[in-house]
């Protein structure tokens, strides 16, 4: 039962405490505070001016700043009676403002225009101004603003230090520039930083100009003595001054070290910056999981791959040149190798998905035959090629770097090692996804053998593959039955001769359609949710990368009657088999970077199987061949010499944003563009938009709110349970004391506190003040029981304990029932009283 924190021991503290320090001159104590205020003023004004390159006479601004500073700093340090001088000064200011209002507004417009054009250089001005004396008006405007700023800063530094007001009053000047990536001069911004730090220090010192009687000494609350604010005047000033010195030392140290070491921002940091920017710009609550994964990947958290076959949900793609796969072979491979991971069979709602299980089940007999004969569609092409063309097989080992890898990347014309599982006609699954091996043909696809293959009518494949061909034509030529698809069909297929052409010609025509209607770009922008991906790409946006071309190619091929499907994976170039990658073990070890991720199409050739086909154009406008490019490969698959991959550099260039490799839709992104040029920086300022911050702010706010609510609920639950537990399971004496304490807390909540009254007196007082809560002498009786529990050796009867317990619960309910909804929440969840 608490009455006082201290049990009275007969010793009294007399209300008379004084602190004697050696005398000091007040004037010298005020100088540090004035210096700090000056730092704030100078820092704010000249940070703003330097950030936006405001074209004014800075000497006059300096004069105004110093002049106003002197007036206000002296005024605020004089005794209270002199503060009356503020009124005429402010009145004069208002009068002058009124007189010069037109020039003030003109000056505002001029300054605003300069600020606006600094942020948006491509735009001319925001306000149309036709004044003669632009510079003078701007100076006038700034002078008036500086007046208010100086007044505010001097007040909150010298009179009543308050960091939050000081920060709120000065930060907006800086934030509006920082938000748009403007860089102020270092000296003023550092002065402002020092000012904020000093302001916190002064505020924490507890000093403020005491507006009451000019007394020194201490304030007393029970047995706690607080030195009055004016005593802390000297320590506040000296603390502030020391902080200034410390800050200057730190900043000088940083400057010296950075100059001495020639510090410059590393590319890796810029990459991370870009990653974060991109991840933030791609963030959406609809796709929260992927967005968070992308975010964590951009921050380098975790080693996970993002799997998402949704099309058109990225503004742009970029690469961080992290290694996704490590490939090791014992021999060179002469051609590029496509390593297929994912196969998309059905195009639906801007996404590539698998055929439904029910579809496959309806062809169960056919697939059962595959298992029976141990020949699968996935192996059709390999069987054909090896039987037809003499080829060497090399051992290839593939290792994935991702912990959550869920595909095996299977090269074409290869024989997997180890246990193989065939799933439907799309997936070849090996023992594990992290490490596996093949025997791969050294000869892969090129233009010649592709032409030969499609013209080979003599190859008789397995009977079950004949059935499979029927299956393919029935299912791999279907497209969504939408108006957009109909439009595309009308435009590109019906209104051309494509349907009369052979397969080879059809494919070339489709390629031409794609290159005529779109250009290659790694920053095509998102496809609006309401638009079809292919339709938007071919008819509106006209920009895209490999995913766009592959998807559109597949759709157009299907429209033209060619069974086609979508594939994603990686590309291994023949040039990767070079001396650099040759190891001591006489093997070639190639790191496949994320920039080698690619999407392409697969075309079905009757009885031969699925053949990779490249729809992505070779000479895309967005590509710029890097002079440092060491691997530049062009390999055509058609007679028109279109290329599969135009030029690929395995090391990113410093000046070239666009990598020539092709990225799959949105997965496998470890993203960092190689933008280190200042132009790029300026351009990126536009990308660094409000969307980024607002998404971040939303996440942080949302998470904070959830955490706070959870914390409150848990706390409430724990406290209430603990109290109930104590009130039921303890002995009568403790129960009575806890119940009494509970009643006291409830009374305190109602505003009835015991200020040094005796217990009985307080009981009578409380009963009087709370007529609607206690009946008759209920609380008085409860107090007697509590006193007995505390001091008496006699036992507490069950009836007594139950009486006080019931009274406490009843009191809580009565108080609760008479409250408004908000107070009820406050009582329940924040005070935990019921």
């Amino acid at each position, binding site marked *: 039962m608490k009455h006082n924190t201290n049990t009275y021991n*007969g*010793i009294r503290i*007399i209300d008379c405490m004084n602190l004697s*320090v*050696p005398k000091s001159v007040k004037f010298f104590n005020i100088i540090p505070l004035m210096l700090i205020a000056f730092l704030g003023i100078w820092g704010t004004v000249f940070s703003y001016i330097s950030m936006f390159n405001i074209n004014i006479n800075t000497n006059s601004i300096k004069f105004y700043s110093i002049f106003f500073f002197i007036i206000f700093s002296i005024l605020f340090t004089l005794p209270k009676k002199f503060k009356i001088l503020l009124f005429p000064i402010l009145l004069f200011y208002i009068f002058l403002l009124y007189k010069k209002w037109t020039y003030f507004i003109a000056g505002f417009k001029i300054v605003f225009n300069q600020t606006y054009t600094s942020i948006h250089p491509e735009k001319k001005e925001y306000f149309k101004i036709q004044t003669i004396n632009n510079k003078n008006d701007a100076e006038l405007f700034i002078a008036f603003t500086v007046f208010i700023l100086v007044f505010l800063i001097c007040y909150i530094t010298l009179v009543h230090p308050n960091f939050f007001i000081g920060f709120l009053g000065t930060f907006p000047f800086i934030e509006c520039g920082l938000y748009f990536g403007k860089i102020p001069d270092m000296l003023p911004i550092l002065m402002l930083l020092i000012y904020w730090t000093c302001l916190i220090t002064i505020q924490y010192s507890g000093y403020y100009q005491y507006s009451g009687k000019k007394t020194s000494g201490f304030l007393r609350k029970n047995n706690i*003595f607080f030195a009055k604010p004016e005593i*802390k005047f000297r320590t506040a000033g000296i603390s502030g001054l020391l902080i200034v010195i*410390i800050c200057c030392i730190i900043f000088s140290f940083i400057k010296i070290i950075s100059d001495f070491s020639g510090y410059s921002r590393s590319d890796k940091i810029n990459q991370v910056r870009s990653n974060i920017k991109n991840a933030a710009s791609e963030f959406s609550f609809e796709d929260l999981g992927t967005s968070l994964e992308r975010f964590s990947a951009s921050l380098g958290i975790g080693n996970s791959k993002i799997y998402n076959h949704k099309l058109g949900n990225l503004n742009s793609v970029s690469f961080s040149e992290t290694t996704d796969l490590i490939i090791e072979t014992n021999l060179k491979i002469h051609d590029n190798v496509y390593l297929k991971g994912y196969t998309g069979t059905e195009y639906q709602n801007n996404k590539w998905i698998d055929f439904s299980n029910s579809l496959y089940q309806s062809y169960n007999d056919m697939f059962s035959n595959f298992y029976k004969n141990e020949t699968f569609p996935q192996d059709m092409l390999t069987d054909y090629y090896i039987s037809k063309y003499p080829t060497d097989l090399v051992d290839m080992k593939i290792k994935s770097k991702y912990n959550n890898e869920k595909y095996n990347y299977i090269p074409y014309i290869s024989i997997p090692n180890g246990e193989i599982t065939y799933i439907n006609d799309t997936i070849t699954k090996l023992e594990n996804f992290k490490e596996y091996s093949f025997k791969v043909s050294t000869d892969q696809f090129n233009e010649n053998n592709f032409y030969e293959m499609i013209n080979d009518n003599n190859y008789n494949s397995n009977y079950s593959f004949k059935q499979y061909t029927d299956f393919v034509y029935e299912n791999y030529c279907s497209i969504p039955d939408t108006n957009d698809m109909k439009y595309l069909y009308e435009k590109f297929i019906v209104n051309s001769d494509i349907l009369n052409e052979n397969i080879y010609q059809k494919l070339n025509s489709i390629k031409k359609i794609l290159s005529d209607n779109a250009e290659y770009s790694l920053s095509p922008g998102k496809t609006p949710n309401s638009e079809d991906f292919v339709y938007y790409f071919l008819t509106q946006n006209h920009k895209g990368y490999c995913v766009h071309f592959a998807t559109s190619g597949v759709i157009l091929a299907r429209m033209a009657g060619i069974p086609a499907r979508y594939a994603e994976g990686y590309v291994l170039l023949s040039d990767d088999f070079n001396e650099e990658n040759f190891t001591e073990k006489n093997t070639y070890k190639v790191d496949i970077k994320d920039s080698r991720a690619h999407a392409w199409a697969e075309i079905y050739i009757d009885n031969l199987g699925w053949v990779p086909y490249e729809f992505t154009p070779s000479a895309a406008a967005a590509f710029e061949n890097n002079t440092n490019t060491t691997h530049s490969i062009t390999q055509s698959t058609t007679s028109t010499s279109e290329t599969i991959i135009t030029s690929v550099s395995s090391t990113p260039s410093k000046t070239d944003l666009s990598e020539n490799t092709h990225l799959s839709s949105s997965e496998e992104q470890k993203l960092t563009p190689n933008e280190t040029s200042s132009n790029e920086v300026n351009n990126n300022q536009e990308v660094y938009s409000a969307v980024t911050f607002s998404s971040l702010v939303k996440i942080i706010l949302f998470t904070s709110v959830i955490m706070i609510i959870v914390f409150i609920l848990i706390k409430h639950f724990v406290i209430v349970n603990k109290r109930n537990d104590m009130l039921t399971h303890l002995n009568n004496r403790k129960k009575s004391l806890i119940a009494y304490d509970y009643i006291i807390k409830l009374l305190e909540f109602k505003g009835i506190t015991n200020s040094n009254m005796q217990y009985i007196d307080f009981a009578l007082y409380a009963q009087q003040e709370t007529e609607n809560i206690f009946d008759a002498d209920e609380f008085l009786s409860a107090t007697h029981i509590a006193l007995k529990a505390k001091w008496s050796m006699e036992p507490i009867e069950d009836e007594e304990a139950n009486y006080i317990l019931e009274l406490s619960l009843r009191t809580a309910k009565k108080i609760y029932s008479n409250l408004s909804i908000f107070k009820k929440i406050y009582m329940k969840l924040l005070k935990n009283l019921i």
Partner: protein
Amino acid sequence: MIITKIFYFILIIISILFYFLYIGDLSLYLMIFIISLPVLLGIIILIAKFKIKFDISAASPTSVKNEKCKFTLSIKNKTIFPFSNSLIKIEYKNKLSGIKNYMDIYVPIHPLTEEKLNFYLSSDYCGILNIKIQSVKIYDFIKLFSCKIKPNINTDIYILPNIDFDNISHISKVLNDDNNDIYSKIKSGDDPSEIFELKSYIPGDKINRIHWNLSFKRNKFITKYYSQPVNSSIIVVLDLIKINSIYSIDTAIELFYNISAQMIKNQITFEICYFNPQSQEIEFINISDIDTLIEITILLMNNFIVDYNYSIINDIGKACINKSELFFITNKYENNYNIIKLFDNNYSTEKSLIFVSDTFSKSKFKYLENLTIAEIPAGKFNENIEKILNDKG
């Protein structure tokens, strides 16, 4: 403080994020500044821990009840760093009760100075007022870190009963021992063995008191005044026990002190008997002046807080032989046997048991009817002191 640390940690995270997101040098400066500032502040606090010294002293070693006692807390800061919000926790207690109370003082510490903080306490009870600087907590400039200094410095003031020595009443009953050779220095009597003083004859003086020889020599009548022998075979014993209530201890000390002061004022020399824990024996001290009484009272208070398990009653009994009077002031109730053993003997000593209690319980004394017993409720000795002293015999 924890909240400040959490906020600062969040600030560090924000500054690192700002460093990644903002291209200018400002972000680097800001990040390094925010990371390095706590390090410097921590160093400052550590320096302060060893360079700030504290001391506490009392204006006077003794005081009386309910009177202001001045204490001075001295803070010496040898560093250039000020600390605006240091918290000094002071523990104060009466050693006789052992109940501790605390006082918190938020005071700024100025740099390169020695500052003095004066405060005043008063005690309602007798005893030893002990003031200790329990701890001092110093915060850095932005209240991110703090350090606790435990100076472990304390000082004592002895709180004595408040007696107006000028207004002590005359004890009507003179406790005499004819075999005594000590005479009163302020009062004449009837013992012809010692001349108190010689004065000129005043009509009414007894004829047999005229100093004839001197009268002839001086050619005027000179009267002899005889001395008054004073009683020095009085023992006063203070035997206290530690119990929760300071009231009985305070009352017992007051009684002891008052009785002693009254006897000193009335020129009645007496002995005080007490147990010396160092020598493990009971000792006797003659008391004839106030200064000695004060010393003894302080000594008794000091001895009281020494925890010993010794029954003084046994040896008192032996010491009572040839003493005319015994005042035994106690707040503990010995078992019947020991009390009877002490007080129920054949010695001619007049014995008074003055029992100070918090609650009266007459039944305790049903076996002690052959003693003069005064039971004094705690806090109410004033009404009974006269009775104790003047109703003797």
